[in-house]
């Protein structure tokens, strides 16, 4: 299968300039690859750096050293050194991030939030609406909420809007951080199925899941971050 992510010698250390220049080493010498159709689950205790690694893969955190080749439009591009508009293009077409939290924008309705990635990829407004509605229905978000801005939604409802947005048109690479934290068992199973479907369609998945049942249902492979823990 095609390699979608290739991580080479990545290290991360935070320097807190305003707290006496304290340096917090996170990990060092991280090397791994993820192929299309794989679901790699990051393991390791809380604080081991799982979320930091996921953010580095997305180009959100900048590693202290190392390179990350992302397969984008048929070629490998180092997201660490790419210029901002290349990173944005990679995110638009190849790289999706599913966070635990929805970043609510005032006045934007749940339906528009879910439609947005489809529109950005050139899908017609009618088709985008149909697909967005189907996804919200699948995640059991009550129809009366679709035309409301999610600022007043419960945590679980916001999380489902976020998931719908990410899975309405799964990216070739999906980075997933705790998507089921505040969901009930029924919706958790929907999410597990959505992830499996994206993977079967060829998406490469890298995720963090604290729920053991979810982890086992999703993973095709594990990577323990603790192995890269810098000896402090």
């Amino acid at each position, binding site marked *: 299968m095609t390699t979608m992510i290739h991580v080479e010698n990545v290290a991360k250390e935070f*320097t*807190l*300039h*305003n707290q006496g220049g304290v340096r917090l080493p996170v990990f060092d010498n991280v090397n791994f690859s993820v192929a299309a159709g794989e679901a790699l689950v990051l393991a390791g205790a809380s604080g081991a750096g799982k979320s930091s690694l996921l*953010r580095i893969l997305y*180009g*959100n*955190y*900048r590693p202290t050293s190392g*390179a990350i*080749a992302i397969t*984008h*439009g048929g*070629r*490998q*591009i*180092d997201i660490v*050194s*790419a*210029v*901002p*508009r*290349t*990173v*944005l*293009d990679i995110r638009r077409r190849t790289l999706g991030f599913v966070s635990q939290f929805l970043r609510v*924008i*005032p*006045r*934007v309705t749940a339906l528009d939030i879910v439609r947005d990635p489809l529109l950005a990829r050139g899908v017609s407004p009618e088709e985008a609406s149909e697909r967005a509605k189907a996804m919200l229905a699948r995640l059991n978000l009550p129809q009366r909420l679709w035309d409301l801005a999610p600022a007043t939604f419960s945590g679980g409802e916001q999380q489902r809007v976020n998931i719908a947005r990410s899975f309405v048109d799964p990216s070739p690479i999906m980075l997933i951080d705790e998507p089921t934290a505040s969901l009930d068992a029924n919706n958790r199973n929907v999410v597990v199925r959505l992830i499996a479907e994206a993977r079967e369609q060829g998406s490469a998945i890298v995720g963090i899941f604290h729920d053991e049942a979810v982890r086992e249902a999703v993973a095709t492979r594990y990577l323990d971050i603790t192995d890269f823990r810098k000896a402090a």
Partner: protein
Amino acid sequence: MNMQVNPQELGLDPAPLLSVAGVSRFYGERIGCADVSFDLWPGEVLGIVGESGSGKSTLLRCLAGIDKPDEGQVLFRGGTEPLDIYSVAEQERRRLMCTAWGIVHQNPRDGLRMDVSAGGNVGERLMDNGARHYGKIRETALDWLQRVEIAAGRIDDRPRQFSGGMQQRLQIARVLVSEPKLVFMDEPTGGLDVSVQARLLDLLRVLVRDLGLAAIIVTHDLAVARLLTDRLMVMKDGRVVEQGLTDQVLDDPHHAYTQLLTSAVLTV
């Protein structure tokens, strides 16, 4: 393995719209801004953040053709040939400023004609650009008032009869009606109530995306920067101390000053 990709190869726009090299402005001994260089591509939104007095408004005035910098160059590629905006004749720079550029001032009074009707404020820009057919001008003005959520019935009212938020939306309509390629905004939501701010921000976000505008936005509000901008420059004492993708700079700040700014934000 060669992984350095020229964005052109991805079908992204070939030439920058604005190229800024070594721009400095001094007020006597004091530094307004010093040695600022960057490129801006079509469709990109750049935020300039920093506290009061950090030089961000001075820089914006240099970039927007209002104040000539003491050193450096600002190149604009609106047509085929890049144009050095401070070496062309005053007249040509003026023409550029009212056709290819738009400036949204912090205080709408600086960008509006207060004794001309709302429709006139918008229509005037079209006439500056050569429109002559009264019916069409009014029709376009009406369309733009509605896009910025000003009721059609207010078209003949003067801006002084509008609230601050409405004046700011009217200013935005006046700027965008001439379909500029590049828009400069100085604290576009400054001085507005939070609820009015939210509405204006959403409007700006949608307009910038739908029109594919390039924009440079000066703000001290990091939430505004996160919502509206793709890239961020952080200024302190007239110099750029850190720049990059907006979410990188805000989520993983490297410079001491950026760390201070991002950690000083109160979350509600």
